[in-house]
């Protein structure tokens, strides 16, 4: 593939993205208020702004096309549309953008995971922009999985399983909200979620779960996901509900056919 063609494709992609963004802006403007997704956990500091780094400038461009309609100029928030992003940090941005929750399509009980609109690099750039605007929690680099499985398991069961379930399949919360399944979550997303407490998830800051403890939990969760079930097909690992369904759908049904065969005329 030639460089020229690649270039034109990139332009096409950009145009498509701009088109999507424009439609999104219109949709959001019509929809009115947008559910509060970010909540500031500290105030903007008043120190004079440093000039933005190169990455942050890229991020600003992306921000100005896709996020500005709801979160406002300089991420100060727009009343009834989107909260201020000052102080949420790059961790929150990375979580929301790489899981596809942001930009938000429509207002729902809670933002859903969907295919991300930006790739990881772009998400990091937007994150960098927000970080340089107002500071806030940041994700560490490197391997986030180097933890102790057993310790992670203990922490997981005390802090996480009540909502996300023993097998990380997620669970229902009140009035249509839910704790999502951790099956598609990456190390960085899990870390960011703990660090920033997106939407109704409680915050587990570094003061509460140390970075090592977070890595323990990530190690446990990712190990659980990659560990093949020793007992056969796990029928969703949803506990006794699906097991009860299975005994009727598989056990009783197959044996009913057996009785029909045994008692049938030969």
């Amino acid at each position, binding site marked *: 593939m030639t460089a020229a063609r690649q270039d034109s494709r990139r332009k096409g992609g950009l145009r498509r993205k701009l088109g999507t963004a424009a439609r999104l802006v219109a949709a959001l403007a019509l929809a009115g208020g947008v559910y509060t997704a970010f909540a500031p*956990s500290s105030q903007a500091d008043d120190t004079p702004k440093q000039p933005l780094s190169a990455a942050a400038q890229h991020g600003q461009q992306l921000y100005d096309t896709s996020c500005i309609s709801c979160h406002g100029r300089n991420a100060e928030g727009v009343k009834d549309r989107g909260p201020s992003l000052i102080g949420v940090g790059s961790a929150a941005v990375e979580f929301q953008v790489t899981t596809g929750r942001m930009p938000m399509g429509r207002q729902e009980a809670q933002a859903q995971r969907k295919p991300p609109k930006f790739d990881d690099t772009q998400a990091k750039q937007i994150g960098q922009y927000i970080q340089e605007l107002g500071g806030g929690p940041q994700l560490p680099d490197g391997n986030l999985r180097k933890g102790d499985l057993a310790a992670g398991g203990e922490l997981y069961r005390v802090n996480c399983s*009540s909502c996300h379930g023993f097998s990380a399949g997620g669970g229902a*919360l009140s009035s249509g909200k839910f704790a999502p399944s951790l099956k598609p979550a990456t190390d960085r997303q899990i870390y960011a979620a703990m660090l920033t407490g997106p939407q109704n998830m*409680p915050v587990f*800051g570094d*003061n509460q779960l140390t970075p090592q403890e977070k890595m323990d939990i990530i190690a446990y969760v990712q190990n659980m996901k990659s560990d093949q079930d020793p007992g056969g097909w796990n029928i969703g690992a949803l506990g006794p509900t699906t097991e009860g369904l299975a005994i009727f759908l598989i056990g009783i049904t197959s044996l009913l056919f057996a009785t029909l065969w045994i008692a049938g005329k030969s």
Partner: protein
Amino acid sequence: MSSTDTEREAPEFDPDDPKLTRFDLVREGARRDGVEIVHYEPRFQQPGSKEEKRVVRFVALCFAIVGLAALAFIVAYVAWPWQYKAGSNINKWYTPVLGLTLGLALLFIGIAIITWAKKLMPEEVSVERRHDGASPDVERKMTAATALSMVDELGIKRRPLLKGAVALGLAPVGVAAIMPLGALIKNHKSDLLTTAWKKGVRLMHDDGTLVRPEDVSAGGQITVFPAIPEGNSNKYADSPTLLIHLRADDAATTRDNALPINKGAQWQNYVAYSKICTHAGCPASLYEQQTNRLLCPCHQSQFDITNNARPIFGPATRRLPQLPITVDNDGYFVATSDYKVPIGPGFWERP
């Protein structure tokens, strides 16, 4: 096969009569048991027909599969690597392979036997007479008399002293027999009313470290235990507590809403509620930090944290008790008293 339609007496029946076939004996035996074999014929009109051979081959094939599967089970049981190894590996197939081989072996025994019974054994319809209803009147009367004669023989009616003595003597024995169960009974007076918390007991994490205010971010919650030996064990199953760091405005609302019993229980923006649901005792710990609701996963009771943890949905009727907390001179959270009301599910004597 039609001569059996009528009842016939067979006084001259001789089991050693050489003219009788074995089936004649079977039929006569059944007849004496009240069973008429009204229809009995082989499945195949001429023995050794193509159809019959096909069925025989099928049954034989089933047993061959049984043998192979059972053999595979034995080999797998002994030789398959079975120790737990993390990840995806051949060891993880140990259980499925055992189930599959054993299951197939058993299943094909069943299929073989039933095919044999259905397709190879003679077709038959038998009719058995029922003898429903009560026993003959004479029988009943004699049995009743036999039973009642016991009373006569004991003569208990004529000997009132014995009647009284038996009653008085045996009644305590009956009670004595269930006495050992009394060992199970345990006095419970105040156990349900108190927990391990009391004035001066510090809060600790699950790992035993003490809790400082800066350990919980705004919008965060942690499970805390009384900082006493084994405080986080099931010995103190009534004591797990949820420490929540509210946002400033939510904390203000909470303070404004505080009932008299909960006045002063809050320390700055921190509140601590019993983690044990007041409905059925599960840990109510699904905390939604934006709506400030706490959900119990067992029966979906929902509690409003900013309003004294009042139940707002589901079957729970009582608020989660609030643990009064403060921060001591060393900067650690400490309880200022036990819960003001009993924690956990309701019970009859709950004051």
